[in-house]
């Protein structure tokens, strides 16, 4: 029976192709707009690294001013970065599976070709563990080993875009590149990587582009080049790079990977012991307040999701509602126009319920078609959004979004079709039979 009803639905749509196209487009438009903003919302609020977001932790220590909290509006919050002294102190631990401090800076790159002027590029100074910790995808080569962190070895990892710019996109592993006044050897080239949001560094541009060059952290000290990211301090630091390293200025982001609950407990205990020890030395005059937040908790604490994403999502879903309501009238007209035919069916024994279900099925077929059209439109819509935001965000439709689109489409078709289907199933067969 279902097959028969589906066939009837299809025949009905075919009978009036223009009207059918109109109705399908109506739903398609609504779904297209809704899915564009549902996807955008999902992308900016979602988990950028779902398969291990509960095993990656951001470290916070409260080394801040004893007289005033880090954030007056949220006084129980510790600072959002750590000092150099503390980085050195806590990286002595061997508890985490992976660990790495990092910051961003700008360095001058000298292209290999003669005569091409040098340019400044964003660089992430980090430890070798960065790559396995964040499952960074490599196209060629790999990250550097622990020994290179200590050296520091003159090695770098290049991002996809800068590799294209300097080496035409080829496998540049093993080639050397002059940065500032030193030669560095390329050990790896990344695939195009755009975690959205850029969760590992929410201090600077949390939806901004990933850095194009990665270099061992200790080169900062070798080259006496500090961070160009966010820095804050509550006490005068003195001037110069060495003074920065000895100061209470916070400028470093610290991530660890802790795979088991026990590991986490151990590491928390380690942090607490470290801070207690520092208190004895006169630092850390605020109450003990060490935090280990996983990716989701950290993003929430940093309030990364923009408010606009919420208001646009609301507006887009209401838009879909209006499109559905719009269709009620059209469907009403269409169904009632076929009242004579339905009258005959009813006279021949079709129940009211059968007629109702038949028309709902027709609506859902329209819904599915509209949903597919909507997904196509959403691809275009996301492309537009991408352009509006300068391709910095990774708006991508995935399987989850496909199911959401389908669900929304079926729901809208239902909203649009329930009343017309109800109206048509209640007609009195006799009236229409006589009207012939």
């Amino acid at each position, binding site marked *: 029976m279902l097959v028969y009803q589906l066939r009837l639905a299809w025949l009905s749509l075919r009978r009036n192709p223009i009207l059918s196209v109109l109705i399908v487009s109506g739903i398609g438009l609504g779904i297209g707009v809704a899915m564009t903003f549902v996807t955008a919302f999902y992308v900016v609020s979602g988990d950028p690294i779902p398969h291990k977001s509960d095993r990656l932790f951001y470290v916070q220590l409260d080394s801040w001013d004893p007289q005033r909290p880090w954030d007056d509006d949220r006084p129980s919050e510790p600072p959002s970065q750590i000092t150099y002294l503390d980085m050195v102190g806590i990286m002595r631990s061997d508890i985490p599976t992976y660990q790495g401090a990092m910051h961003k800076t700008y360095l001058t790159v000298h292209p290999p070709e003669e005569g091409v002027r040098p*340019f400044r590029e964003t660089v992430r100074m980090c430890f070798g563990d960065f790559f396995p910790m964040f499952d960074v995808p490599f196209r060629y080569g790999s990250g550097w080993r622990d020994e290179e962190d200590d050296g520091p070895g003159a090695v770098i990892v290049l991002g996809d875009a800068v590799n294209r710019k300097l080496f035409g996109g080829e496998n540049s592993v093993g080639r050397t590149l002059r940065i500032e006044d030193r030669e560095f050897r390329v050990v790896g080239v990344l695939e195009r990587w755009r975690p959205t949001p850029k969760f590992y560094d929410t201090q600077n541009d949390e939806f901004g582009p990933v850095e194009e060059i990665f270099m061992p952290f200790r080169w900062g000290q070798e080259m006496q080049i500090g961070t160009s990211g966010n820095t804050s301090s509550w006490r005068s630091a*003195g001037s*110069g790079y060495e003074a920065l390293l000895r100061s209470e200025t916070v400028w470093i982001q610290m991530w660890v990977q802790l795979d088991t609950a026990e590991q986490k407990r151990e590491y928390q205990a380690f942090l607490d012991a470290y801070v207690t020890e520092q208190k004895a030395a006169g630092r850390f005059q605020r109450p003990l307040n060490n935090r280990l937040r996983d990716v989701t908790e950290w993003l929430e604490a940093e309030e990364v999701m923009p408010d606009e994403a*919420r*208001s*646009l999502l609301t*507006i887009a879903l209401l838009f879909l509602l209006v499109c559905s309501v719009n269709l009620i009238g059209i469907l009403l007209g269409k169904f009632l126009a076929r009242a004579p035919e339905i009258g005959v069916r009813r006279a021949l024994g079709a129940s009211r319920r059968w007629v109702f279900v038949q028309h709902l099925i027709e609506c859902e077929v329209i819904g599915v078609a509209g949903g597919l059209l909507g997904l196509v439109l959403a691809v275009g819509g996301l492309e537009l959004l991408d352009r509006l935001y300068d391709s910095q965000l990774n708006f991508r439709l995935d399987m989850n979004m496909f199911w959401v689109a389908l669900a929304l489409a079926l729901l809208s078709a239902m909203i649009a079709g329930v009343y017309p289907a109800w109206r048509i199933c209640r007609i009195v067969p006799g009236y229409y039979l006589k009207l012939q």
Partner: protein
Amino acid sequence: MQIGPIFRAMFRHKGRFWLIAVEVALTLAIISNCLNMVLVERQKMNRPTGIDEDNILVVYSEPFDKAFEDKIYARASYDNDLRALRGMPGVHAAAGMHAIPLSGGGSATGRRPRGSEIDTLSAPYFIVSEGVIAALGVELVEGRDFTAADFPTPDDDEASATAEDEAAAEPDLSNVIVTREFAELMYPDGDALGKTIENRNGDSIDTIIGVIERMHNSWPLASFAERVVLYPGEPWSERGARYVVRAEPGMLGELYTTIEDELIRQDEGRLIRVETLAEVKGDTYSGTHAVTKMLGGLSVLLILVTSLGIIGLTSFSVTQRTREIGTRRALGATRTSILGYFLVENWIVTGVGLVVGVGLTYGLNFVLAQWAEVQRIEIPQVAVGVLTIWLAGLAAALAPAIRGTTVQPVTATRNV
């Protein structure tokens, strides 16, 4: 025109007209709120910055030559750059700044009135060279501009002063120029000129020697955008320098293309980047701009969709009542009165929809205010929404209504 029959006729086809009313109500709620959000964002973007943005270029010097690691060399390069820039034809004024206003990047510290007990307040600041007032085009309304005497003599011996050294030393004294908003923040009685401000430890004491009417700091979209403190000093480092160059009227385009070459000519060991301040501002505003475009686009699309809906329903309504129209015409109704009939019907339905819609508008606004920090809507926006939809609804109903007037009286007599 008799309203009674129109009402009674409408009651017979309730469902259809409620549909239009519901659509109108929803559309009003949505576009009024979109209008509200767009206006709030635009207001933020249109705030005057106090700076002559249209005539200013931002120049970045990014050294790669090792020579720049020597402070003396770097300072000489900086002084030379300013001299060269000021000597270029078409340049009205040039100055060095450690960060650029409107760019989203800058510095802030804490200051409070000297001797007061309150905690320090956030003080966004810029370290600047001489001539910054002229270079930015801001209006100095009290006091005076910086002179050479205000600038501290360069001290190259303290290459790595430690925190302890600084704590033991004398307090840092400086003359500063602030914006009126900051001055009033510190001294609400409006007599900040000549008064001093300090940091929490009391080891930095600044005397206010000038007040600017208005200037935006690095964060023009923030609520504290108009707080600025200008410190005379050395806004360069071994990593480079930033300059603001104000062009004579009409000379911006030419300078944009010639500055890089001129500065490279002065010293080849660095990269020179040039941007217009308008471009810098545009980048800072781009996110907000994108949102207003999206809201605007959605609103237009929505009005279109609703109009199509109204056209459809009115058309259907007219077709359904062909016989009735014919009967009226046969009984003597003019074409105009038929048209009037349908239009009045449309107005009643739209009117009901708009009334319900006003309630929905405030409801939606409440939800958005709670969930997405949207500002409360005000009557003017609702009024504009009402007017727009009323007109759109009217325009939509016009074509089918006119078609209705073409029904011939003879249809009253036909049975088919």
